[in-house]
């Protein structure tokens, strides 16, 4: 069982969106997942560029995901 699964909240650690919160939407293969967040656009992302958090979120809709992340965590580690 791996930590990276649909609904997992993560922090991106690479690129222009580094330090921002996102949620795993689906697992593409053993290297890549599709992520989205309030300040992260929907895109494919390497698992090596993610740091998983203990929390999980229900995948209801995009607005729901963004609202919950903004309420619970904020936009990112670096404001």
């Amino acid at each position, binding site marked *: 069982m791996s930590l990276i699964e649909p609904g997992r909240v993560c*922090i991106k*650690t*690479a*690129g*222009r969106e580094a330090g921002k919160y996102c949620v795993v939407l689906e697992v593409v293969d053993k290297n890549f997942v599709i992520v989205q967040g309030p300040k992260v656009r929907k895109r494919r992302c390497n698992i090596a560029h993610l*740091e998983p958090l203990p929390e999980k979120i229900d995948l209801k809709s995009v607005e729901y995901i963004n609202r919950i992340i903004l309420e619970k*965590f904020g936009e990112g*580690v*670096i404001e």
Partner: protein
Amino acid sequence: MRRALRSTKIKKIVKRTPSNRLTIHFRKPAPDYAHCGVCGKKIVRARLRPSEIRKLPKVQRRPERPFPEPCPKCMREKIKELFRAVIKI
């Protein structure tokens, strides 16, 4: 040629003048590589004089990620430190 201009850092270009005479033009040497402030590694960046860097678009002058000064590896370490601080709470 002046002794100071014989350095291999200074590029020489042979030009033909309007009066059909060959002259040597000297180009200014390229500046040193940029280095990471944390680990001291070389950073891949435009190796141009400051006046030429100012002519570039903003995106080509610096990386778009949160910490532009250190190298990408040290930036990831920095973000992981911040991330660990979040986890404790």
